[in-house]
């Protein structure tokens, strides 16, 4: 895979950056997120999480079935912050 291919569209994190995070020691979707910010955008990882898991699996040999999704926190959809201030 070309290093410049974007994996996390919201934050524009590339394949190369994700591989670098794994080389740096990330062995989970959350570990990659903490290093490079994939899954921290508007969609909260809905579209890239499974791609990140696949890349971790390819690079580390950990089966995808053993890779948990990132921790899910509310709000699970983009919500205007102002509604919580009312």
């Amino acid at each position: 895979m070309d290093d410049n291919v974007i994996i996390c569209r919201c934050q524009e994190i590339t394949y190369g950056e994700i591989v670098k995070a794994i080389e740096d020691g990330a062995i989970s979707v959350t570990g990659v997120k903490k290093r490079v910010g994939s899954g921290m955008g508007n969609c909260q990882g809905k579209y890239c999480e499974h791609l990140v898991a696949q890349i971790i699996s390819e690079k580390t040999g950990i089966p995808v079935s053993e890779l948990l999704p990132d921790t899910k926190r509310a709000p699970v959809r983009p919500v205007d912050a102002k509604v919580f201030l009312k």
Partner: protein
Amino acid sequence: MKELEREILIIGAGPAGISAAIEAAKAGAKVTVADEHDTIGGQLYKQIHKFFGAADNHAGMRGFEIARKLEQEAKELGVEFWLNTVAYGIFKEGVGIVRDGDNFIVKAKKVIVAAGGIENTTAFPGSTLPGVMLAGAAQTMTNIHRVLPGKRMVVVGSGNVGLIVAYQMLQAGAEVLAVVERDDHIGGYGVHAEKIRTAGVPILTDTIIKCASGKTSVEGVTTVKLGADGAEIAGSEQEFNADTVIMAVGMAPLTELLWNIGCRFEFIGELGGYVPVHNEFMQTSVDGIYAAGDITGVEEASVAMEEGCIAGIAAASACGHISAEECSARCASHIDALAVLESGEYDGERSAARAKKLELYKASEK
């Protein structure tokens, strides 16, 4: 923040959610269905093809017709619909929703989460170019807004969604240059594959998209064959003069709300990834929280409707509207129907997957 009280709150007005609402209302419960979209029916709303299967599951009807029928039935039973309503979290205090720009905590006796699934994506050089889209987007544009997303298309994925979308694009007047499939065989039903083959569309197995190119949008697509070792075979590239790439590479359950409240999950690849374990009445490992439809594993609308019926009956029974015996009696035909739907030639793995979820639920009860 305001508090609202409801008896049964259902999240998602797709086939599972409305079926649940109908059965719960029939049993005498007061039911509210929340959905983030402005229409009732979920994905059924954009399906223009006729469904097949058993007549009990509306076979022979088109998706949007099934949606309309279910909507009418639910409304006649007094089901309350909250559209354009986002459920953003499930907490001990209740379900957080945003409706008309206001934040509410809904205290419901029982909650049925029927949030559906989400499409998977695939990445390749050029996959972020305009013109590359998911199958759902292509269907929304074509079938609902009547806008053809492009003229010359390559579809990625030969599962039922990919095959049906390819056919719908042909019907809408686009040229489908090829359907590419990473696996060595076609994923979807033969009857769907035959339709597009008859129309002259090649289905290329062991093939992926190497890249899409173009200055400001897709102007060409290059595919490449994969060898037995999964590596690209040099020299097997094929160029397509395409302006659109439609990805139909599987779906995953949309489960955040259930993770949120602490449901127990298990990875079941056949069902699309991590799925909540549940009992035969669709109750998750968290008391009072039920799940139905693609959120419990990606399957078909017919399965979603049966699961919805079961969850609706069980939630109404848990609220005291019908006895446990009556609940079992009403659920029996739906449980039988699931066994039939999941026992076909293509579907054997799914009945095993269901058994696994039930078994894990029992184990977690101890």
